[in-house]
């Protein structure tokens, strides 16, 4: 089930009603769990079995890991969990990719081997719920938090429908305690939740699907060498599309959870206003970046083993982060480019001895928000943000292109004016993309140190009402069908 569908609206209304009826907390949790399974099964019922398997195995392995004192047995249990989770992910997501690469490799050394192409369907959200369960068992192994007491709470933690299919990737301490005591949204939370859902759907349906997707698809699917204007328009269209698509999903997920009384972590913080690439990764898919930092970069050694190892660890993290997004070498190159950018940034920081900020600054109070925005709104910072945005756009070429030939052709179109280059996009498409891109960057810059709910609550109520109405009217007017979110495939 996708958020941008009539089915979900009906489902959500029923859930809101059920969650506000005078049932016991346990009954409400069972309702939420069953609804989450229904939410998932409405996509492809058989894959619910995978979700159950992952839940049950990790619940019991996690508990055993925490209670087991024997070092060898603890390691064995961890290996069982890693094999279970990563094995499932590898089979469904990387099975075809591994076989294809193996085939190419053995054929290159002279062994004539041509296996049948495997027909493996990727279960929706497998990358997300695998990471959710993995962090639980790793935390249990490191005894960083206590095991979840009931399988009901653990199942709900893994399966809770707002975050199940495309994040935000939650950690046990962020969500499990919220299931331990009765929760129901108060009127303020409900209104905030509904506002976020409206905003998220507006981003996904109106901006990503209705106004940007076609231009991005036309350019990335084109076989011809394009004029520079068309190539850049397509890349900027995708840049906006991927942000609005995924940030729209996250905003909906946070809004849906908040409407039921639960708080999910933020996943995006105006990334196209990032000043530098480490800042970008503190603002883009924040829960994945944090996961990779805590469960990959730091265990690899982080920055604790000298500068050279730090650079290597950084690159390994970004390469695997790239591969997480999809079973294709283009994603690896996308990750490598980001790793390379981070290297250069780190190198400059090391030379100039600039300390790294720990997190993107977010002002929680109105006063601080105002102060924060003034502090960073210098022209030189804006220009640095634009340089960052430029290089991020280059990486999107590899992320979206189906293969290296297409990616290289598009890069050629972007940076040279080939004499036989073709025109492709209509004037209307170009206007749409450039207007949205300018507004997107300006909005991110204005909002980079604050959050949308803080700003919304500072507005006069009538102005907020008018803006909210515009979101909903454009949503209705766009009449886009319920297309999948891009990140479902990851």
């Amino acid at each position: 089930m996708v958020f941008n569908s009539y089915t979900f609206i009906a489902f959500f209304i029923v859930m809101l009603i059920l969650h506000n009826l005078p049932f016991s907390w346990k009954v409400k949790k069972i309702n939420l769990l069953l609804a989450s399974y229904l939410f998932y099964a409405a996509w492809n019922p058989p894959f619910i079995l995978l979700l159950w398997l992952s839940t049950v195995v990790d619940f019991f392995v996690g508990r055993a890991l925490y209670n087991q004192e024997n070092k060898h047995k603890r390691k064995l249990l961890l290996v069982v969990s890693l094999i279970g989770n990563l094995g499932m992910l590898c089979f469904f997501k990387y099975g075809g990719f591994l076989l294809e690469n193996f085939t190419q490799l053995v054929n290159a050394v002279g062994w004539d081997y041509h296996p049948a192409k495997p027909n493996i369907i990727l279960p929706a959200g497998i990358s997300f719920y695998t990471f959710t369960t993995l962090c639980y068992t790793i935390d249990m192994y490191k005894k960083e938090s206590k095991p979840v007491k009931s399988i009901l709470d653990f199942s709900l933690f893994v399966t809770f429908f707002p975050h199940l299919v495309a994040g935000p990737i939650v950690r046990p301490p962020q969500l499990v305690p919220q299931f331990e005591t009765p929760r129901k949204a108060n009127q303020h939370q409900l209104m905030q939740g509904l506002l976020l859902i409206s905003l998220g759907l507006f981003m996904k349906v109106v901006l990503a699907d209705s106004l940007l997707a076609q231009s991005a698809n036309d350019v990335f699917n084109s076989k011809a060498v394009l004029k520079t204007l068309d190539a850049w328009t397509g890349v900027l269209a995708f840049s906006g599309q991927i942000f609005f698509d995924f940030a729209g999903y996250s905003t909906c997920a946070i809004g849906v959870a908040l409407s039921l009384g639960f708080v999910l972590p933020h996943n995006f913080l105006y990334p196209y206003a990032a000043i530098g690439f480490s800042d970008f990764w503190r603002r883009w898919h924040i829960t994945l970046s944090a996961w990779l930092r805590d469960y990959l970069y730091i265990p690899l050694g982080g920055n604790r083993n000298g500068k050279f190892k730090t650079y290597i660890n950084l690159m390994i993290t970004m390469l695997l982060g790239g591969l997480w997004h999809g079973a294709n070498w283009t994603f690896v190159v996308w990750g490598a480019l980001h790793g390379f950018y981070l290297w250069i940034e780190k190198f400059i920081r090391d030379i100039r001895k600039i300390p790294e900020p720990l997190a993107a600054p977010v002002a929680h109070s109105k006063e601080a928000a105002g102060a924060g925005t003034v502090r960073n709104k210098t022209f030189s910072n804006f220009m640095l943000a634009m340089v960052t945005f430029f290089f991020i756009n280059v990486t999107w070429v590899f992320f979206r292109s189906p293969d290296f030939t297409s990616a290289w052709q598009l890069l050629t179109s972007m940076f040279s004016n080939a004499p036989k280059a073709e025109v492709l996009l209509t004037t209307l498409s170009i206007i749409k993309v450039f207007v949205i891109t300018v507004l997107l960057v300006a909005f991110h810059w204005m909002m980079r140190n604050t959050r949308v709910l803080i700003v919304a609550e500072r507005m006069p109520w009538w102005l907020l009402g008018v803006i909210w109405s515009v979101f909903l009217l454009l949503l209705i007017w766009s009449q886009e069908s319920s297309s999948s979110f891009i990140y479902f495939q990851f």
Partner: protein
Amino acid sequence: MTAPLAKAAILTVVLVATSVLCWELYVRNNDFDTSYDDGPPLWSDKRRMIYEPADRSTVFIGSSRNKFDIDIDTWENITGDHAIQLACVGSTPIPILEDLANDEDFKGKLVIDITEVLFFSTSPNNTGTPIECVKYYKDETPAQRASFYIDHLLESQFAFLDKDRLSLNAQLKNLRIPNRPGVFEFPIFANGFGRVQFNRQEYMTPKFLSDTNQQNQQRGIWAMFGKMRNEPPASGKKLDSILAIVKTSTDKIKARGGQVIFVRTPSSGPFLAGENMGFPREKYWEKVLAVTNSPGVHFADYPAIAHFACPEFSHLSPADAIVFTKNFIKILNSEKGWKFPKQVQL
């Protein structure tokens, strides 16, 4: 904190409800009535119906002519037979024919419309929609199906839910901003040309039929498509391979007890002249019948259906569609041996 958000929410509800109501009244006063999105979900809904008993239903495949020219109400009233419309506009029916042929459970009656310029095309422009429809049908999730039923409820009530003409993108396109030389932009069809019913019947509105500007606009679009076409009429090995696919598919259906008939629906004026020139009857129509060893009904062979003047040269008006359908049923029943649940009386 609570009050401003709640007040904003109430204002939002009032503004949205008022605006939607005003927009609905406006479009209904401007020649719009309810019309359904003729996308893959609606096609899949009809595709699910093909397993009805063979003596109770007929499946139609082809291009837009089948959708305009077969009047489903007339067909069902006269024959007592359920008409299942699976034709796709601007498309060759061959991917759908293959899908039906490969479905062992389909053993029914099949009418295949031949619009030569589309039927014998292998261009992705003409195969894309049917391939997408078949794929959607096979991959459709329970959630998508549930959304389709809710969408149906809304589309049956609101005329503004017309994606092709009244969506945000359609309205922006109506600004008709000039393009750079060499850019192709899909033309805007005449406003009253194609409205779609839930049974996928397509029809022209009364305004279209009385407005020669709209008819000329649509004729101009067909002429433009004709000039733009860079795919020469299929011949030689390409034609043989298309015919081979059609033969294999029809043979499979017939081997299971199904009935197959080809139909060449009417066109007129310069459009018909162009079709006759590009796709001579003996080289295409007759060859399909001969290769597949199947019966066919060519409109030019029957005086009762040979006289139509299509408003935009390519499709029948609703009134003519009724006449065509009645005579088509008569021919099927009296000459081709097709039996229907009801005794055909014309």
